[in-house]
């Protein structure tokens, strides 16, 4: 019981610390709505130097420059879409962690649904085949 509680405390601490990895030490905007947009955008833009991090997570020089750019564009009154366009015009769709649905990314977006279909189809075949088999047959032969 005590051991379980200890694990719960550790788990909670780990979950709460997820935000502590952010690089910005202070808020970019005093205004909460703009700060929320800033955090949302920097968390969905890829750092192109360390390619598996977002620009919010990375302490690479370029990530810092891109955060500054996002901050200035928000301050200049640009919309989120205009800011995404600004960056994709320079770095391509790769800069977006949430890529748009285009002919090239169709397979990427459709893959989860396709996998579910294939799995359900395969499972259905096995179930139907086994349900038709005599009760005392060796299931190993039915696969």
């Amino acid at each position: 019981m005590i051991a379980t509680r200890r694990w719960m405390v550790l788990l909670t601490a780990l979950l709460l610390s997820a935000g502590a990895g952010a690089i910005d030490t202070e808020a970019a905007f005093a205004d909460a709505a703009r700060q929320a947009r800033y955090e949302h955008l920097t968390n969905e833009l890829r750092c192109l130097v360390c390619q598996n991090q977002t620009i919010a997570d990375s302490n690479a020089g370029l990530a810092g420059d891109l955060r500054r750019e996002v901050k200035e564009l928000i301050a200049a009154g640009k919309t989120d879409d205009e800011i995404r366009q600004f960056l994709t015009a320079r770095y391509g769709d790769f800069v977006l962690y949430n890529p748009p649905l285009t002919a090239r990314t169709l397979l990427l977006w459709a893959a989860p649904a396709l996998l579910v279909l294939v799995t359900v189809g395969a499972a259905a075949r096995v179930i139907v085949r086994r349900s038709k088999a005599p009760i005392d047959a060796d299931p190993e032969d039915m696969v």
Partner: protein
Amino acid sequence: MWRYFAPAAAFLALGALFAFALMRIQNGTLDVREIKSPLIGKPAPVFTLPLVTDPSQSFDSRSMAGKTYVVNVWGTWCPACREEHDSLLQLARVTGVPFIGIDWKDDGQLAQQYLGQLGNPYQQVVADAEGRVAIDWGVYGAPETFLVSPAGIVLAKHAGALTAAVWAEKFAPLVTSGGSR
């Protein structure tokens, strides 16, 4: 029978695919970190920046209109730039295409020393201390090199050290008579 062979065949096919990709990474034909530039075929970003050699003066990229030219993004902090430096000196001399250097997020003093010691391949070399022009060019690492047409269109980009072999393969076929040869 197929149920025993199919997994083995799938395993071998995957293994062959991975071996093929690894070989291409090893011999340099595949760069998994490369990001295709959306700028290719589009107008080159315009910039005006102070000269490294004399910060009181500035260089405007529009002055290159009508010429094929190279934009090379580098920094004294960048080991691969040091690696490509001799190739740059040689290519700038041999090809006759003007090289414009963008010294990215660097110390102007160090840059002057570096060019003084190793030689200066650039017709003009400018300082992008804040990295804003580099963002306009979609730069994500140094060195990066672009080829721009006389009409001001970005023709090609190379990320990583520019060698004579890279020049011959990627850039030379695109240099038209507009380049002063």
